């Protein structure tokens, strides 16, 4: 799979750069998410160019899912509120009327939720749910069936007749997730937001689906905002990465750069915790699991939120708030240490 990804890499990057002069597709600035008085996400910034693929990484509760929901404007239903600006294709989404936002969703921004039985209506046949999406996008009635089959072919679902007539619970997890992807790309969106799209699946299925996702993005020129807790997935799929911890961006930058020189102790801990790197380092290097848990919202310190679990903690870490600062070209870091310091202790 990796070799295949590499092949497509160069041509695609060129394509993405060619488009970049047409401006950024998505720009998130100073995004804060709160639940009443409780702060859940603090001042997150990132941009996404057309065709670019960004990975949002972090442990459970780091705010990555919330960030991606804020981008889709889907927080109010859960009683949360967001401040800051989310600009899509030059338009501030916060200022959009609900109807205009709905026009954007599905057509310009596609969504692929976490693989789970609950993401499809349990009492509606899969064929009907696909047809519903296609009809919603304004497909003429007589073309609906053809378009649905086209979508199923695009996500490489075989046994089309059975899938169309099946109820969600009658399909395997992998097949359901292919259906979710088909629903996400039905409107040929410019941006696909995928929230842990492969988490609940077994490893082989995960790989096949990620390959599929990448191919689809290339074929349709879609940008991808991928939420995951797996840095390995980011390395294989994405162009850039944003590492989140306790509602804050800790480190971000191009994948090549960040993976070559991981600078934040948290990023390095995540990298060390990857099963692949552990096995690469030999049987002796067991998972370098982080001791402790991420702090709960509301218990965040003024200084570095990772400090309580950090091996490199010094007094400066907890003295005051720490800003994101530029390391190199596009590589941002929120740490009092310089990028090179202490690396040897983790890597």
């Amino acid at each position, binding site marked *: 799979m990796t070799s295949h990804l590499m092949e497509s890499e160069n041509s695609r990057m060129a394509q993405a750069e060619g488009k970049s002069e047409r401006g950024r597709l998505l720009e998130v600035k100073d995004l804060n998410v709160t*639940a009443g008085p*409780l702060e*859940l996400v603090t001042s997150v910034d990132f941009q996404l160019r057309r065709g670019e693929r960004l990975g949002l990484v972090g442990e*459970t*509760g780091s705010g990555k*899912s*919330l960030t991606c*929901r804020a981008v889709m404007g889907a927080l109010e239903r*859960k009683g*949360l509120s967001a401040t800051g600006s989310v600009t899509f294709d030059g338009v501030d989404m916060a200022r959009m009327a609900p109807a205009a936002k709905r026009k954007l969703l599905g057509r310009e921004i596609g969504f692929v*939720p*976490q693989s*789970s039985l609950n993401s499809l209506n349990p009492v509606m046949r899969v064929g009907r749910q696909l047809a519903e999406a296609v009809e919603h996008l304004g497909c003429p009635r007589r073309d609906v069936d053809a378009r649905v089959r086209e979508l199923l072919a695009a996500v490489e679902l075989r046994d089309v007749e059975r899938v169309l007539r099946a109820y969600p619970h009658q399909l395997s997890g992998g097949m359901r997730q292919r259906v979710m992807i088909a629903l996400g790309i039905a409107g040929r969106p410019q941006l696909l937001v995928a*929230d*842990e799209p492969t988490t609940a699946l077994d490893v082989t299925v995960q790989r096949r689906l990620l390959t599929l996702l990448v191919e689809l993005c290339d074929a349709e020129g879609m940008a991808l905002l991928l939420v995951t807790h797996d840095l390995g997935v980011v390395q294989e799929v994405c162009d850039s990465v944003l590492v989140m911890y306790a509602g804050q961006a800790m480190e971000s930058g191009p994948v090549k750069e960040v993976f070559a020189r991981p600078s934040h102790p948290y990023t390095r801990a995540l990298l060390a915790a990857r099963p692949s790197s552990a096995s690469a380092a030999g049987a002796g290097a067991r998972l370098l699991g982080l001791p402790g848990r991420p702090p*709960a*919202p*509301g218990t965040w310190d003024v200084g570095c939120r990772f400090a309580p679990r950090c091996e490199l903690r010094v007094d400066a870490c907890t003295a005051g708030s720490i800003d994101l600062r530029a390391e190199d070209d596009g590589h941002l870091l929120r740490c009092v240490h310089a990028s090179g310091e202490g690396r040897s202790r983790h890597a």
Partner: protein
Amino acid sequence: MAVVEVNPTSTARAIGSRRRRASRTFAIGAGLLLVITLACFLWPPLSGVSTTDFVGTPLQAPSVQHPFGTDNFGRDVFVRTMAGGRLDLVVAALGVTVPLIFGTFLGVVSGLAAGTVLDRVIMRIVDAILAFPFAILILALSVVIGPDWNLWVLPAGAPAILVALFVTSWSVYARIARGETLSIRQRDFVVAAQVTGLSRWTVVRRHLLPNVLPATFTYALSDVVLVIGVIASLPFLGAGVQPPTPEWGSIIYDGRSLLGQAPWVSLCPGLVVVATGIAVRLMGQGSRILSGGEDA
């Protein structure tokens, strides 16, 4: 998809406020029921007016003197409603409590003996009794048992209704208690108690009943509404408590022909029936949440 990790303390707080609201709902219902009950038992003797006394012009509209007005015989409808309420409340209380105790007992037995012939026989009988429309079954039974039968202070008709309730109503409680017993029986603390060597009766008394009773009691509260409704419906089907003893149903039934000209004769007692129903329903809603069920 855990979008938000819910803060444990806020959840505990939410449950706490939910329980507080549930206790308040229960208390409001209980207070209303207490007021109605006190009025029913105290007002007729205190007012010195009897249910058959002629107190003034027939068909007077409600006034301070006669809050529910007078009927076509010039009798005070309020006094009649309160006096009649005693009967409805007593019959409902007895007709719910006895089946509650008996049914809970049978249900626990059935649940402990799940899968045996005894359990199957009890449950099939329960199914069969529950298949009869309640109102029709009570009607049929009370007619067959004897609508003219009076017993001690109970006027003709009432004992038959009570017996009819006793032989039928236990079935729902048995079904509920059996279900609860089955689910509790599996839980660790009961298993642990059994392993520790506590006697069966001790386990039932200390662990099963405290968990089964809230469920059956909660149902009993909605059963009260049902039973009062059925007792009051019987006059419309030609049965029920026999005249001249007033009872909510018969007062409403007698007043139905006056609805056009003197609606208060029927509707005022009707309002009391509804108020009683709401009181007990509120208690039920509170109790359901307090006993750990869902609000439905």
